[in-house]
């Protein structure tokens, strides 16, 4: 039997843990304190220190429990924790194992709501910029709500009553309880694959816990991402959800959502009839105005006294005719005058005198010409007679009188002994006849006596 009085650390710690676990007061404790050193592990476990101004107590909340916490634990928050106290053997530390955690003073739903609201507001998701315009006359309307219950009935009856032209398609959706978030997200996404003009997301009344799904981030994001304008009818007057904030339009009740979605048939009919009477009125006014204008014009001075319109023209024509006549007469008389002047001038310059003068001149010149010609003839005749006398004096015949004769051979005068040869027949002209002779002898003269020949 061992008498070793020493315990192992493990054994002592185990003993202490047993004592803790056996204590009924420590099995289910409610403790209030301020969170510090909050660390949320990727596994979802939350480690923290719970403290007050005197003491610090390490704590842990495993992910299974942490899932039910609606808010995000942060250092500095005063929280109410229900759990148990036990010993973590590995570190020999006792610690608080939290089962549930609530924010002291305000509900954790409220806190979670405020936190998400702040986060989304920072991202600007509530800004007017994100709000889509609702069409005036929607043709197709999607309704995302539970298939049964007052909300769907209210919405569909109201849509039908107000505006029967619209086609309504219901997307049956779980709006509360487990799976509500996923169901809402799926319905809104499904509606977005079709062409709707407006989407109503609605639910009936219920507690704040019942509408919690509409405070979830996933729902808020799918609403922001929707291409279809969304009218929310989720909260009830005082309870506003995150979904209400991000929706394009918020209605206090499902009926109000339907009223916002479509115009009222009765109002439209009234409007149409008012349009009719306004059109009728304006057109009648136009017609009567035109009529009045026509009457005014018809009774206007020129139309009432049409002759006055052309009177000035007649006057002008008459004046023009008068002046035309006057002008033409003047023109004719002026022309006559001119004619006379020119005629007179022409006549005063008649060339008869010149003709007569010229006739006299011609006669005179003819006479002088005759005279001159006769004179000339006389002179020429005298010259001729003189020449003839001179010629006669110079005639060879006269020379032959003085004893000269002219020998010819074959009709040509023989001027040189070289022209003839012995035996040629010569004709010798004498002053009183011809002698036929034959050449017997040729004696050319010596150089000295050629000229005597």
């Amino acid at each position, binding site marked *: 039997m061992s008498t070793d009085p020493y315990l192992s650390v493990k054994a002592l710690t185990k003993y202490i843990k047993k004592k803790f676990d056996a204590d009924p007061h420590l099995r289910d404790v409610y403790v209030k304190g301020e969170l510090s050193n909050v660390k949320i592990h990727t596994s979802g476990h939350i480690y923290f220190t719970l403290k007050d101004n005197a003491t610090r107590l390490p704590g842990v909340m495993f992910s299974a429990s942490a899932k039910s916490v609606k808010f995000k634990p942060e250092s500095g928050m005063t929280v109410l924790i229900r759990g148990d106290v036990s010993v973590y053997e590995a570190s020999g530390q006792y610690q608080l194992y939290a089962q549930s955690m609530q924010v002291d003073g305000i509900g954790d739903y409220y806190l979670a709501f405020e936190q998400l609201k702040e986060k989304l507001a920072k991202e600007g998701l509530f800004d007017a910029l994100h709000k889509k315009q609702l069409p005036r006359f929607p043709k197709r309307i999607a309704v995302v709500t539970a298939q049964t219950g007052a909300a769907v*009935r209210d919405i569909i009856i109201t849509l039908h009553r107000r505006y*029967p*032209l619209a086609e309504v398609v219901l997307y049956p959706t779980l709006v509360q309880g487990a799976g509500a978030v996923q169901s809402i997200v799926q319905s809104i996404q499904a509606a977005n694959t079709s062409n709707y003009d407006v989407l109503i997301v609605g639910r009936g009344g219920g507690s704040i816990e019942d509408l919690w799904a509409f405070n979830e981030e996933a729902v808020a994001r799918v609403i922001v991402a929707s291409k279809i304008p969304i009218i929310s009818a989720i909260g009830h007057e005082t309870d506003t959800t995150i979904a209400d904030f991000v929706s394009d339009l918020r209605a206090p009740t499902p009926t109000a959502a339907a009223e916002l979605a479509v115009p009222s048939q009765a109002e439209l*009919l009234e409007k*149409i*009839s008012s349009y009719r009477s*306004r059109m009728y009125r*304006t*057109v009648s006014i*136009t017609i009567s105005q035109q009529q009045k204008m026509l009457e005014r014009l018809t009774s206007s001075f020129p139309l009432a006294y049409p002759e006055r319109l052309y009177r000035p023209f007649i006057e002008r024509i008459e004046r023009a005719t008068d002046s035309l006549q006057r002008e033409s007469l003047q023109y004719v008389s002026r022309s006559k005058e001119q004619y006379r002047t020119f005629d007179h001038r022409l006549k005063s310059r008649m060339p008869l005198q010149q003709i007569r003068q010229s006739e006299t001149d011609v006669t005179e010149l003819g006479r002088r010409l005759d005279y001159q010609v006769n004179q000339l003839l006389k002179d020429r005749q005298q010259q001729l007679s003189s020449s003839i006398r001179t010629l006669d004096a110079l005639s060879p015949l006269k020379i032959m009188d003085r004893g000269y004769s002219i020998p010819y051979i074959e009709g040509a005068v023989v001027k040189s002994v070289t022209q003839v040869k012995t035996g040629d027949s010569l004709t010798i002209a004498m002053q009183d006849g011809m002698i036929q002779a034959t050449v017997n002898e040729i004696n050319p003269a010596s150089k000295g006596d050629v000229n005597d020949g």
Partner: protein
Amino acid sequence: MAEKKIMFNDAMEQLEEIVRQLEQGDVPLEQALTLYQKGMELSKVCHDKLQNAESQLVTMMKDGKEVPIDIEMGGNAK
């Protein structure tokens, strides 16, 4: 007669535009009459569409298909 194919909202918007134009008062007479005629036709179309609107098509998406649903309409329908 305006064609029946026109959508209610287009008809309504055209009608509003015509009323606006007419009320501006500077429309020539012929055009005013044409507009008036067109406006009356559109008004009739709108009126008829609203008055004669058959009970709306209420459907439900079930397994990705639209199926008719019957909602208790209460007494005030039509």
